[in-house]
């Protein structure tokens, strides 16, 4: 595997930063630390074919790792509870403003055995009749009513496979 260059890191960092700010999210203002994580994302993209969380061990099987493709399914609840996501790529506004300190946080992702059980797809739990299916982005909670989910979530840029049927 060829070495990840600084310009590749800077380019992705710039893009993630723009996308985050446009959607009300914030990258960690500790640029050196954050660029280290961005480098990890590029390494994982080359290694596994997708941007698995740099602070979690990916299986290499995409279906099993969907929940930890960055931004992960756990980012938003962790931002609420701790002001940071697990790897600390994303932080809350309070952290950005320097009003709150962050550190290493507990792992919210269920351990391997429990994940297997949960993988039995969650079915929409309503008998409500709707004219179109409603899809929910598992990353940010965005909802849309259309035949198929969008290619990319307009809010958090998660890909189509991260959507689940909500109604």
């Amino acid at each position, binding site marked *: 595997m060829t070495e990840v260059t600084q310009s590749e890191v800077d380019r992705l960092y710039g893009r993630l930063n723009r996308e985050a700010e446009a959607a009300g999210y914030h990258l960690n203002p500790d640029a050196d*630390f954050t660029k*280290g*994580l961005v*480098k*990890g*994302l590029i*390494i*994982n993209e080359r*290694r596994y074919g997708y941007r698995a969380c*740099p*602070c*979690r*061990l*990916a299986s290499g099987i995409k279906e099993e790792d969907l929940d930890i493709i960055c931004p992960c399914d756990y980012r938003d609840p962790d931002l609420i509870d701790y002001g940071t996501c697990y*790897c*600390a790529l994303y932080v809350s506004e309070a952290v950005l403003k320097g009003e709150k300190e962050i*550190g*290493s*946080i*507990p*792992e919210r*992702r269920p*351990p*391997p055995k429990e994940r297997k059980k949960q993988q039995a797809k969650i079915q929409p739990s309503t008998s409500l009749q709707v004219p179109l299916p409603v899809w929910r982005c598992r990353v940010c909670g965005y909802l849309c009513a259309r035949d198929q989910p969008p290619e990319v979530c307009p809010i958090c840029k998660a890909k189509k496979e991260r959507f689940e049927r909500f109604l």
Partner: protein
Amino acid sequence: MVVKHIPGKNAGHIMLYALSTCGWCAKTKKLLDDLAVEYYYEYVDHLQGEEKERVMREVEKWNPNCSFPTLVIDNETCIIGYRENDIRKALHL
């Protein structure tokens, strides 16, 4: 892939299970370097197949969540995540 050894002053047997891409693992490793203690580490994301499974079972014994960094001191104490104060205390430094 073999476990890597970093020489330094003896503060007990220190084993760090880490990921090469993880910022908190890097901070933990740097803390051990700054403390200049002798330690062993393994980048679990560099392993494959059976070896990866074997090391994951080792990590699971200490940390059922299999998260990183997992630091095991003297085969007795386990510190999960980058916890500077806990690490210093456990190493009596």
